[in-house]
């Protein structure tokens, strides 16, 4: 076994910039020294190690939260390195953005951000191996080919394995990433071929893998009771009673550090009572004896009922803020052949990751080490530094596989709690939340209210549209993720259009939930457009293909407060193609369906993905305006996320999961605020979708000639309106308020 050199040349960090597509490669490709990495393998670069027997270890740089990135990112490297996937072992990277670039999971960004970069990382490794083989075999590099981890000189019939020359290759200069030769995509052998999740064997045999499974020598367990109301503080607590409970090592009050006005979970630590015990169950049992008197601020008077009343009042007035204005809506309404008006609403939602929030921390000799199932380790490190006065260089964050993320684990609250409590307890501590903690102390998907008006001309064309969006926020600023962009479809496709917003003051943190913004906006816009389609006397498919036929306003003209980032150049032809395909696959207009069964269509562009859904639903009308039992029989999906699906198996799984997630949102999920706190607490009151409610989801990808984009999110948004539109087609009842069990103003049950 050879140790690779740690000479100065190997320590020359590569900093490439502005490669091919203008991407910035702001990371160093230098490997860890073998001593640091604690392995005899040769480290070709930060991502790649090769053993003498040709086993390739590839670092997975981004957090794995169930989106499959720990499998798919290494696949990209393996393909360009030209090794067989079966000889690849994957290892979670350290959190070290200097070495690995951006390391976070969110916004379906991992694939688009890393596609080009990781191809180059793999190709650079291959180039070093080829150069080494040329030296070893004394032939020009141009006469060498690679395949399956072997470099071959065809002319002389000689070959060397990567493993044989890896330690020599590790000493070669690191090539310029901008200049490395990439494969012709038609030669991909790993990308585009289904690979199984690299952690699959551990998952099915129950090996320790998740944040909740982390064990550190001498570790204690903690539970942390926070005020039901945001930024509330402990006034009094019966700590002495708690301390006498079996196994309890420590119980103490934490004074909150979250600044006033902060509405995210990454601004400080909440006030509360920490109980540290030998086992988590002992901490929990002691917590049942805990009695806390809280000091709550003004937020304690907030309630969902109050929000609804304020929304109703605001909706009657003109929007306070303008989001966008095109043409002259008033004139267009006057000249319209038909006017359609409707109001929609959707609730706050929790993330409810299957693995409740947790983190483990150890504070020793002034250094903090954390193990966390996090989506954003950098956020956690920054919050520890800010809140606890520890320098970032003295903070290590270990990324551990997460039992779901959905945006929740971008927040740093479990990390700061573990770090704080571990330092205070003087021992390594795992902080684990109960399910109730998890549901009641979330950063929620904000609820919202929309009042629409549309004008249709005599030819059935949508000529005018207004939306008054009543959202949440304080001091004229949207609450986190409660904004609406100026380019929400059909903006640009309707000549006269106005979007405006008014805000209800909010005392509950909000944040990103899978397909943030889009998960709600798709429901209201695609449902209302379905109303317009029906009012225009057209089949919804024909109406939408018409609407998607031409851009009628050239450039988005955002006004007022900036909304969500404008989606990069919505390409309506890609959207049309997805709508076409899904309609064809679902047999739209071609199948005779039994009475009470109907199809609904919806589509949405989000996270750079173009996704269209058709839902087949069986539903019955109940009473005057309600619906009875709803059964979603099947959903068809057509998605265009670019030319390459890195891992088809994982991609289909994501699309099915996101689609079914949308059904879960639609059926019965709702977070209710009362007295400033969250009412729901567990899966009985915040129900997740179950097996008997999950229809088959048939997935089709359109491989358009575009760079690949992410898939964790864009398949969710069209689900709700597709199902709601199908319910309308089946029953004549329009779902304007979700969850569905609210439609029962006429007495419905779901």
């Amino acid at each position: 076994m050879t140790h690779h050199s740690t000479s100065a040349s190997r320590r020359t960090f590569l900093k490439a910039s502005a490669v091919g597509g203008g991407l910035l490669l702001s990371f160093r490709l230098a490997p860890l020294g073998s001593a640091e990495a604690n392995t005899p393998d040769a480290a070709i670069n930060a991502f790649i190690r090769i053993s003498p027997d040709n086993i390739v270890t590839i670092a997975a740089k981004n957090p794995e939260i169930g989106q499959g990135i720990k499998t798919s990112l290494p696949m990209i490297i393996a393909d360009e390195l030209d090794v067989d996937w079966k000889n690849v072992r994957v290892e979670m990277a350290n959190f070290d953005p200097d070495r690995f670039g951006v390391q976070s999971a969110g916004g379906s960004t991992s694939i688009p951000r890393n596609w080009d970069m990781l191809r180059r990382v793999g190709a650079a490794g291959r180039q070093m191996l080829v150069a080494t083989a040329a030296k070893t075999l004394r032939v020009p590099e141009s006469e060498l080919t690679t395949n399956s981890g072997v470099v071959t000189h065809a002319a002389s019939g000689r070959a060397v394995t990567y493993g044989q020359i890896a330690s020599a290759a590790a000493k070669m200069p690191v090539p310029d990433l901008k200049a490395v030769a990439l494969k012709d995509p038609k030669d991909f052998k790993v990308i585009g071929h289904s690979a199984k999740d690299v952690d699959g064997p551990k998952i099915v045999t129950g090996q320790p893998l998740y944040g909740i499974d982390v064990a550190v020598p001498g570790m204690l367990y903690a539970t942390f009771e926070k005020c039901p109301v945001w930024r509330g503080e402990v006034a009094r607590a019966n700590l002495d009673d708690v301390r006498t409970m079996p196994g309890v090592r420590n119980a103490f009050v934490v004074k909150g550090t979250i600044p006033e006005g902060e509405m995210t979970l990454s601004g400080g630590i909440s006030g509360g009572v920490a109980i540290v015990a030998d086992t988590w169950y002992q901490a929990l049992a002691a917590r049942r004896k805990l009695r806390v008197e809280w000091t709550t601020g003004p937020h304690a008077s907030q309630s969902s009922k109050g929000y609804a009343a304020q929304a109703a009042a605001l909706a009657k007035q003109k929007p306070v803020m303008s989001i966008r204005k095109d043409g002259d809506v008033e004139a267009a309404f006057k000249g319209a052949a038909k006017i359609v008006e409707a109001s929609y609403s959707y609730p706050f939602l929790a993330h409810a990751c299957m693995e409740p929030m947790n983190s483990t921390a150890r504070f020793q000799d002034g250094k903090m080490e954390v193990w966390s199932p996090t989506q954003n380790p950098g956020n956690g490190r920054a919050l520890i530094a800010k809140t606890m006065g520890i320098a970032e260089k003295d903070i290590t964050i270990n990324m551990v596989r997460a039992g779901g993320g959905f945006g929740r684990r971008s927040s740093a609250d479990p990390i700061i709690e573990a770090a704080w409590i571990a330092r205070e307890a003087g021992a390594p501590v795992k902080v684990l939340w109960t399910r109730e903690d998890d549901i009641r102390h979330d950063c929620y998907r904000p609820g919202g209210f929309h009042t629409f008006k549309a004008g249709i001309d005599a030819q059935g064309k949508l000529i005018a549209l207004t939306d008054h969006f009543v959202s949440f926020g304080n001091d004229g600023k949207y609450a986190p993720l409660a904004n609406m962009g100026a380019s929400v479809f059909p903006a640009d496709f309707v000549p006269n259009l106005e979007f405006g917003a008014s805000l209800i003051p909010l005392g509950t943190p909000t944040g990103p939930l899978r397909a943030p913004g889009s998960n709600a906006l798709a429901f209201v816009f695609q449902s209302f457009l379905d109303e317009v389609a029906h009012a225009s006397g057209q089949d919804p498919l024909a109406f939408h293909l018409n609407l998607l036929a031409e851009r009628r306003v050239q450039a988005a003209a955002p006004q007022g407060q900036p909304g969500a980032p404008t989606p990069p150049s919505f390409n309506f032809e890609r959207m049309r193609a997805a709508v076409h395909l899904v309609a064809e696959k679902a047999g739209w207009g071609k199948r005779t369906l039994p009475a009470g069964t109907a199809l609904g269509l919806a589509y949405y562009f989000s996270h750079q993905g173009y996704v269209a859904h058709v839902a087949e639903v069986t539903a019955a009308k109940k009473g005057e305006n309600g619906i009875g039992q709803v059964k979603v029989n099947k959903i068809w999906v057509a998605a265009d996320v670019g030319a390459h699906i890195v891992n088809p198996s994982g991609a289909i799984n994501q699309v099915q999961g996101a689609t079914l997630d949308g059904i879960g949102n639609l059926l019965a999920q709702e977070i209710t605020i009362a007295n400033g706190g969250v009412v729901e607490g567990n899966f009985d009151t915040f129900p997740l979708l179950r097996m008997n409610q999950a229809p088959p989801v048939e997935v089709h990808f359109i491989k358009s000639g575009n760079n690949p984009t992410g898939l964790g999110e864009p398949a969710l948004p069209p689900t709700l309106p597709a199902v709601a539109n199908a319910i309308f087609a089946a029953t004549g009842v329009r779902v304007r308020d979700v969850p569905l069990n609210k439609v029962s103003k006429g007495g419905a049950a779901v």
Partner: protein
Amino acid sequence: MAFTLTVNGTSHTVDVDEATPLLWVLRDVLDLKGSKYGCGSGLCGACTVHVNGVAVRSCVTPIASVGDSKVTTIEAIGATEIGKKVQDAWIELDVAQCGYCQAGQIMSATKLLEQTPKPTDADIDAHMTGNICRCATYNRIRAAIKLASGQPVVKEA
């Protein structure tokens, strides 16, 4: 209090409060981390284990009620013929997303196949509805159960 229980064929004596749920004895005392905590209230199935051949939610099973029953967890279910078939089918169809619920799903699915060797869709609905998958891998869970039971399955990718 001391309790003696048999887990995966090995006898253990643990000293815990009698109300301690089996789940926390398995996870934090016996260091078997495979059974997962999802809700603590019998609502999600993530903590499913077999006690004397019956699938139970270990989060709501006090240790005092376990007595000298035989407990089988995800760590040892692969030693049974059906358990192994189920695990293999889960891998073959790449069922997991985050994977957190899957230990419980596999324990429930194994029990289903022990009782109903060729389950129909309705059998699967009835038996598996207590196991939540937040990632909603339900299409693949259903297919994997059928694959493990020798019924035809169309592979998607």
